[in-house]
């Protein structure tokens, strides 16, 4: 049974059901209106319901089919470091400026790579920071602070 649960079809279906139900729940209290003046709730409820029903169908088909694609191998560590890099960029950009944001972004993102090469990372980060500053701040004059406001 566990194997069937970990099929892509079953999981994808479950995810769609989840999103569909979430949409229906959130949109339930938006006014539905009538045919002449359709309210803002009508379309999201209808779409959410359709998504949930279809997701249910996909999920059940995945669960009960004689065979189905199993969830592929996965290793979320690179994703985690990438996300941390993006988060660091978003957090630092307006607080510490573009240079710090790029350095941190590259520093974290490179942790998703094995083996970790500290010198290469430092050189790459410095290069990209210079490139980013050169193109966007000096070249294009975008209102992005280099070193915080």
């Amino acid at each position, binding site marked *: 049974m566990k194997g069937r649960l970990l099929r892509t079809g079953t999981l*994808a279906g479950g995810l769609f059901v989840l999103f569909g139900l979430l949409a229906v729940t959130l949109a339930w209290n938006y006014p539905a209106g009538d045919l002449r003046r359709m309210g803002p709730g009508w379309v999201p409820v209808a779409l959410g319901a359709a998504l949930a029903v279809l997701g249910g169908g996909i999920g059940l088909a995945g669960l009960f089919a004689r065979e189905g694609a199993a969830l592929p191998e996965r290793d979320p560590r690179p994703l985690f470091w990438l*996300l941390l890099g993006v988060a660091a960029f978003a957090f630092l950009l307006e607080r510490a400026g573009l240079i710090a944001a790029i350095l941190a972004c590259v520093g974290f993102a490179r942790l998703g790579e094995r083996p970790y090469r500290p010198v290469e990372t430092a050189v790459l980060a410095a290069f990209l920071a210079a490139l980013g500053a050169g193109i966007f701040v000096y070249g294009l004059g975008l209102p992005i602070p280099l070193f915080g406001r």
Partner: protein
Amino acid sequence: MSELFDPLLLGFGVALTPVNVFWCLAGALLGTLIGVLPGIGPVATIAMLLPVTFSLEPVGALIMLAGIYYGAQYGGSTTAILVNMPGESSSVVTCLDGHAMARNGRAGAALAIAALASFFAGTVATLVVALASPAMVRFAQLFQAPEYFSLMAFGLVAAIVLAHGSVAKAVAMTLLGLVLGLVGTDVNSGQLRFTFGIPELSDGIGFVPLAMGLFAIAEIAVQLERHFVRGQSAAIEGLWPTRAELREAAPAAARGTLVGSILGVLPGGGALLSSFAAYTLEKKLSAHPERFGKGAAAGVAAPEAANNAGAQTSFIPMLTLGIPPNAVMALMIGAMSIHGIVPGPQVMTREPALFWGLIASMWVGNLMLVIINLPLIGLWVSLLRVPYRLLYPAILVFCCIGVYGLNNSTFEVALALAFGVLGYVFVKLGCEPAPLLLGFILGPMMEENLRRAMRISRGDPLVFVERPISLALLVLAVLLLVAVLAPSVRRAREKAFVE
């Protein structure tokens, strides 16, 4: 005949002065160079480069901006082909077969086909703009809310054709995209939907953070996970298209040009829909539809031609009415106002040199694009030889800057992060993101026009079938739906019989 060609001669007289040729070249080159950075699409590129043109003469400034626009668009296609990242909605389709070709070692061929198809389409569409603008505007004005609704319905069915895997999952992804598209302030009532009290969400989710998350971040995560080390992509087999590829691409480019020229003139959804529609058409016409999504040359040529033709004809509403049909044209109008030209129906008679010069420079710009880009193909392709461990941090950084730069919003960078997680999950679950993006773009327009049509008809749903264009589009949508579903139904039945 002379009243037809005199204005064009005047235009070329303006466009071919050395100064303007220079601005055109500079614009196309700058646009290509900025647009090729991942995460930075045409709107962002034009917005960033707009101030560069402030100091020029009005004609030169507009010619340069047009050059920037073509350059950015082609640059975006380059990124789509090389690293599977659409910088704007219309290059989502180019990703499908363009990147598949690159994975097969045919990146150079894909880039060349894209450049040549774009040039062909640009040439034809420039003629359309010069000769048929008034007729095209009258055509566009036949489209009211019911027609837009039906057109969007047709587009949604086309979204399903994009998938080469499970049809059910593609439909579900389209639905999810439709729901995501509803986030923000409802145009008709002012109701905030799915915004969780976050003011930044009240204008909806941006396309760029969504696409960057689903494509760029998820793609990098998956590549790293595979311990993607140097030179893992297929060996690069020649830079130029083979004769067979060209034979496949040429008719596709011609049909794509036709589709793009017509749809490009429609405000809002037109230019976006054209590349999807052209791709769908090719996949349905092809003797080998199963090759689509795996590197079919026609799957690159058709959407690229449609895309570029649409880019030209989307100038028509702006030039003849002064009404911008999309974000790029709104920026062009802004640029005109900055230079003291009031855009509107009078521009053609009051500033003929500017009007026809701009049209002539469209063609010159497309020529520049080919001249710039054919030699650059070698350079772009050699980027693929850069070890991935050096390439991906650069892609990530440019994506972050691109997402931020569009609205100067760190919130949107955080949003891209969230969609990165979702994109990763989708890859693992075998769900393709392209239908989601199409649903995301079409959904809000479809709902808006559905409710607008019902309001104007005072609640009578028959408006959708009483108006001939709307009816025709709905019939087409149903026919396409049957054509899409029939093979999978037949397969299921055949399977049942075997068992």
